[in-house]
Structures are given as structure tokens and as C-alpha cells.
């Protein structure tokens, strides 16, 4: 396997190897392999329907991959195979947390409650599966105060602390997105998967999001997998980019290299295999094409002809 792994110093946090997912006749993910490093942001990009969300669903137990392996290295050095777990086991056994493409909060619960639900396992154990909690034993009281404190910490990080007692469903859209991210981190993951966190945000909000992700990467020392269509976000903060198209990986590398890659540009502009891509996705495809080519030009301006080699190898395999 000649995967293109840019920094080879540390063993990777996540190793996805030959991942495939088939829905009936449709091969949504086709033999995709990539690595993600601890403390880095790895972006997964690609046109609509490329299979990005499906990769996330395989990593988080919602789908069982048809074939392939997703190995996650924990802090103690042990390795877990994510595809073995059910979705509800992923949070604790796999320590992977995620957000969803269309926000999935608990709308009628308050912001604070949303974050406490994220700490369910810890609180459940502290309450002795409710038996101790009913009598409000000191152990549970301590755990509960700790959980609130953690929740407050992350609420402050996403600037939602003043709204802690409001219903989550009442928050404006951008705030809901941030809350969902805070909720995911509250679950104490080593790998955080964000599915299009900037979708539907206005430019200033997506700037804030970029800052937030940077801060998360630094403070939490976790790996972040990021699906995103907003190229200003992707190019600005990713350390590593994986490009999917029609289920297979077409490129991989540092942002500049990916942006300059002709296959990526072609996939976004819909030049190759143009049939459905060009006609069906006219408007949105066009918009994304713009984003990509912007990235491409800026990448070119900063001068990056050198690192094309690695990317091309990645494409070959």
C-alpha cells in the first residue's frame, strides 16, 4: 500500500484502509484509504454525493462497511476497530464523536441538558445506573457538578454560556451548529468528525467557526475529521485534505497541492464524466466549482508546485 502520508513522525490516529460501502447496486464508498493524525484537521471534500457522509457513518457505527478496516489508536496506545461497534458503542468504546450534516440537537431540551446528555455514560456510571442517583449519593453529586462544569467550559468556548438555560431549538441556526460541536466534544472523543459545520453560516460566522476549530485543535489535542464544502474554511485550516469523487479517493495531500491538482479541479467543475454531474447539479456544482478554483489560484500563488508528487502517487493507488 503506497498511501500518501505527509508527516510520518507519529503513528496515525486513524487508519482507514480499503473502506468500501455498497448500497444495493450503488458503490457509495469505493476502496478508500487515508490516515488522519492526532492534533490535525483532516478535511474530506468532494462534490455532492461523493460518499463523504457515508464514510462518517461507517466510522461511527451507523453503517457497517461492506469491506475495509477503520483502526483508531487511543491515547494508551491500544487500537480499536471502529467498524466492529454499534453506533451507540462508538462514543465510549471507540471514543469518536460526530456532528450531523443537518443539525441534530435535542430541540426541546435546554442547551445545558444537551451537553449533559453527551456525558451520559460518565453520569450513568456515577449514578450507579440510577440507583445511587435517586438517593443523591455524594458520588453522583460530585459527578454531576463536574459534568456541569465541563459543559460550562465548552459552552464558553462556543460562546453560548449565557444561553445555557434556553431551549436548544430556540437558538439561531449558527448557534445550533456551534452547540452541536460543543456537544460532540463534551462526549470526550479522541476523534471528532464534523459533517459540514459551516453549511448555512454567513461569512462572519464561518470565520468564527474557523477560529473555533483552530482553538479546538490546539486545546483539545484531538484529531478532527472535517467534511466541508466551504473552501475558505477548508483551505484555511486543514492540515491534510482527502478528496472523494463518486465514492473513490481521487487525491490527497496538503491544501495547496490538492487545490492545484487537475483531477480535483475537474471533479469540482464537472468536466470529466460530465453526464449527470453537469446537468443534475448545475447550480450547486457551479458554486462549489468557484470555491475550488479560488482555492486553486491562491494555492498556486503561494507557490506549491513541489508537493504534487505525493498527491499523484495517492491518485495512482
Amino acid at each position, binding site marked *: 500500500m503506497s498511501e500518501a502520508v505527509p508527516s510520518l513522525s507519529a503513528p496515525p490516529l486513524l487508519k482507514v484502509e480499503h473502506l468500501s460501502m455498497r448500497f444495493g447496486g450503488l458503490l457509495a464508498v469505493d476502496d478508500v484509504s487515508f490516515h488522519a493524525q492526532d492534533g490535525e484537521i483532516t478535511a474530506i471534500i468532494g462534490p455532492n454525493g461523493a460518499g463523504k457522509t457515508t464514510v462518517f457513518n461507517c466510522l461511527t457505527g*451507523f453503517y457497517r462497511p461492506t469491506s475495509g478496516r477503520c483502526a483508531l489508536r487511543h491515547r494508551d496506545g491500544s487500537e480499536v476497530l471502529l467498524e466492529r461497534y454499534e*453506533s451507540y458503542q*462508538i462514543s465510549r468504546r471507540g471514543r469518536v464523536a460526530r456532528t450531523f450534516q443537518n443539525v441534530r440537537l435535542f430541540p426541546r431540551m435546554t442547551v445545558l441538558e444537551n451537553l449533559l446528555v453527551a456525558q*451520559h455514560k460518565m453520569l450513568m456510571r456515577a449514578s450507579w445506573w440510577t440507583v445511587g442517583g435517586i438517593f443523591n449519593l455524594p458520588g453522583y453529586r460530585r459527578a454531576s457538578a463536574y459534568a*456541569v462544569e465541563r459543559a460550562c467550559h465548552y459552552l464558553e468556548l462556543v460562546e453560548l454560556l449565557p444561553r445555557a438555560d434556553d431551549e436548544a431549538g430556540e437558538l439561531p441556526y449558527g448557534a445550533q451548529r456551534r452547540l452541536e460541536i460543543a456537544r460532540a466534544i463534551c462526549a470526550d472523543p479522541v476523534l471528532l468528525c464534523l459533517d459540514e459545520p459551516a453549511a448555512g453560516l454567513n461569512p462572519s460566522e464561518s470565520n468564527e467557526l474557523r477560529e473555533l476549530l483552530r482553538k479546538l485543535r490546539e486545546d483539545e489535542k484531538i484529531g478532527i475529521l472535517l467534511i466541508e464544502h466551504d473552501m475558505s474554511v477548508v483551505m484555511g485550516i486543514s492540515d491534510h485534505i482527502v478528496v472523494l469523487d463518486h465514492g473513490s479517493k481521487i487525491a490527497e495531500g496538503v491544501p495547496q497541492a490538492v487545490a492545484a491538482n487537475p483531477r480535483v479541479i475537474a471533479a469540482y467543475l464537472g468536466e470529466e464524466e460530465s453526464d449527470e454531474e453537469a446537468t443534475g447539479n448545475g447550480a450547486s456544482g457551479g458554486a462549489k466549482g468557484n470555491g475550488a478554483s479560488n482555492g486553486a489560484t491562491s494555492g498556486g500563488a503561494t507557490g506549491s508546485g513541489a508537493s504534487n508528487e505525493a498527491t499523484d502517487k495517492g491518485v495512482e493507488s
Partner: protein
Amino acid sequence: MSDSASQSAGASGASPTGASPAGGMRSGGGGERQVLSAFPPLDIPAIIRELAFTTLIASALVFPLLTLRTVDSVEGLYIESRWMVSFMAVALVVAGRLGLILLRYGKMIYAAVGGVVAILAAFFLPVPSLFEVILVAGGAILALRALVDLFLVVRQISPSARAEFRDRGGVWVRRVLPWAAGLAVVFAIVLPFMPFSSRYLIDVGVLILTYVLLGWGLNIIVGYAGLLDLGYVAFYAVGAYSYALLAYYFDFSFWICLPLAGLLSASFGLLLGFPVLRLRGDYFAIVTLGFGEIIRLILINWFRFTNGPDGISSIPRPSFFGIAEFARKPKSDLPSFHETFGLAFSSEHRLIFLYYLVLVLAALVAAFTLRVRNLPLGRAWEALREDDVASASLGISRTSIKLAAFGISATWGGIAGSFFATRQGFISPESFTFIESAIILSIVVLGGMGSLTGIACAAVLLIGLPEVFRELVEYRMVTFGGGLVLIMIWRPRGLLSFREPSIRLLDRRGRLRFAVAGRGVGESLCAGATGGATGDTTSGATSDTTSGATSEATSGTTGGVGR
């Protein structure tokens, strides 16, 4: 008839109970206000068309249903035709619709006069008694609604002001509710000793409390876990039969059987839960419905064990905690209650004891539910109800959490069942039909899913009122159905539909409820409390703590953090 119902719906939409921040409801109401502020010009052809259409529909419904009636007399069965009654019914419906139309076009005076005329007509025209009731109620609602609208127009109260008024009313309701609930509890405790109390009243009280108990039990499945269970009566039946059979075969006393019945019922709950919980929505509802029927059919057909449709009679009554018995001459070797306590014998003693027994059981369930709701388990129930995919991604196992809901809920159902058995002294499968499940479910849904107070109110309304109006024999079930319809129209999310959070960071006065360490957290919270909370909160509860309480909130918060 249905017109007067929807009529009243509009009227009390404006009543100050709109606490729920339900977007749907509010926007619906808002639309109506828009119409109100700018009345359309009178459009006679449209009105005539509408009235004609109403007549058509009313006739189509009324004539087949009301006109012909079989009468049993000495000469035999013959058919009586009641054209007059049918015409009157149609006329009533059309008149109601006319009232609505008048309101819609802003002819409030006419509508008010029409309402008064209807009330007078009830007293002076020779109409059947049910029509009298409808005339009075419909007329009163119409007149009231017209007067309220008139008041609003004259005083030029804008729709937004009305919404605000409603919000403030909601906040008020929320604040008063705990006190009202406390008062109700005190009232329930002293009821048997009040001068106006009677055997009958206490009996109704026991009945209502049994349904409160059942409602609170079912609430865990339906209100918290969000699963539509149509077969709750199965657990009720299991509890009742557990007690009856254990007492019959093993001579166990009530006090041993009560927890055993709960356990047995819980195990049935888990047994049902395992296969069923993987189903969703309608499928789940249908299977629980089937389960309810299966239990009933087993009880009917397993003749040798359960005595089949004949039921089990002479179920032992509970003793006074195993100390004394409520009988003039106890059959067992226990002394009798009145002699032990030096009272004159009265058959009411047992009834009062049963009343307090069910009251204590209900209190137990309430305390348990309120506590569990604030624990991770309770939050997990609600999280699953809100979004089970997101819950799974946060490590909540659907099966085990819902099984817990099922088990706990079934336990309470079983305990209610064995109480029922000991109160009646006789049970048969007749008592556990689907209608029983439906009644319990209506209590939960109408009370406002998840709200214990709301459910208690609904139980009082749905069980108490028909019981008190027993003299209206034929119309008893009409009261029940009418109540259902009215609540559904007024408050589609239940009587008390707002949700109290399981945990709050700031209490009502704006102080931190938790000693949150870390300076940064506290400081930004203060900044938020002064700046953020004023403008953008939309929920009724928070907006009342804004301006006045803000400065206090800030100081309180800093104090809390400093410690």
C-alpha cells in the same frame, strides 16, 4: 355543535395559558389575529355558499344518525321517526356557523346578541335537554368571544400586545403552578376529614387517584420515552391478577403481594420490551395494542388458572399494615380496626384507608418520577424521544434505556392493578379492555405529555367530571368525548405543555446553581447575563428574569463564583 366547539377554541386561544413556546400554536394564533385586526368586507354570496355547505354536511351527518330510533314497547319493537329533532340539530349547527361568520366579519354586536338569544331560547323553547345544554354553552361562548373581540377592537390592542399578554400569563401560570399543586396535595390529604366529604366523594377520589397513578406510570413510556403504548392496560391486568392469584393460591397478604405484583408486571414489561423495542412508531403502537389484547384473551381462556370470564371474587381486602382488619368481625386472627383504636365501627374506615393508600402510592410514583427525570436516565429518555440518531452517537443505547422505561412504567401499572384488585374485591377480564388503555392514554396526552401536574388535572377532568355528572346518564360519555375534543382544540399539546428543564444553571433569581470553578466561566456568564439575556431570549421563563433581575443576577453570579 362542532361549530360551537371550534368557536370556543378561538376564544380561549387568547386565554392566558399559552405558556408553551410552541411555534406552531403561536403562529396559528397569530394568523387569526391578523384577520381580526383587518376585517374583510361583507361578502354575501360567499356567506350564503358557506351556510349552504354547512347545512349540507350537517344534514348528511344528522339525518342518518338521529332521525330513526328503535323504541321498545309493550307491543314490541317499532321505529320512531324524529324529524323535528333532526331539523333542530341542523338548525343549531347552521346558527353556530352563522355566529362564527359574524365574528369573522367583525359584526361583534350581532354575534353577542345572537348568543344571548340562543341562551334565552334554551329556556323558552321546548327543545330536548341536550339541545338546551348546547344552546346555553354555545350561546355563552359566542357572546363571550364577541365581547372579548369587541373589547380588543375598541381598546385597539394589537396582536403583538395580545401575544405578550399571553406570554406573561404563561409565565404567571408557571410560577403559580407549584403552589397550586402543593395546595391540591394538601386538599387531597385533608379531603376525608372535610365537613362536606362523603362516602361517595371519597370513592370518586379513589377512582381519580387510581387513574392518576396509571397516568403517571404510562407517562414514563409515552411522555418521556416518546413511545406510543396502546396496551398499557396489560400491565394493569398483570398486576391485578398477580395479587388476586397469589392471594387465592398462596394466601399471600396484600402487603407482600404489592411489591410482587410490581415485579411480575415489570418482568412482563421487559419480556414485551425485548422484541418490541426495535420497532418504531405505528408498528410499535400496533404490537403493544396486540399485547394488551393477548393478555386479556389469556385471562379469559386459561379457565382453570384464572377462572376465565367469571373472574375472581372475594379477593382479600388489605389489612391495616398487618396490624388490624377493617371488618366488624375479622375472619383472620387479627383484631379488628375499630376495637384496636377504640373507635365505633364504620365501614368508611376501610374506604378512607384505601384513599390514603392510593394517595401514598401516587406520591411515591410522583417522587420517583420527578427524581429520575433529573437523572441521566431521565435525560436519556427525553433525548431518545427528541432524536434517537443523535442519542446513539452520544453513547445512549436505545434498547437498554427504553427497556428501563418499560420496566419502570410496567411496575407502576402493576402496583396500580393490585390496588384496583384489592379495592374492588372482584376482578374479571372485563375490566381490562382496550378502552381502559385508551382512557389512560388520553389522560396522559391531554394532560400534556411529561407534565405530572397536567396529567393529574386531566385525570380529574376526564374521570371526575363524568363521574359527578352521572345523573346525566346518557350524556356522560358525551361529556367525556366533548372534553377530549375541547382540550385537543384549545391546547393541542396538552393542558400543561411546557417543559421544566431537568437542570438549570441559573435559578429564578439569576444566581448560579452550581459552584462552577474557573474564573473565566463565571465572568463570561456575568457578561452574558447582563448583555445577552435581554434581547434575544424568546422563552417566557427566561424573559421574565431580564430587566429587573439583571443587576441582581450579576452580583449574585459574581458572589457565587467568588466562593
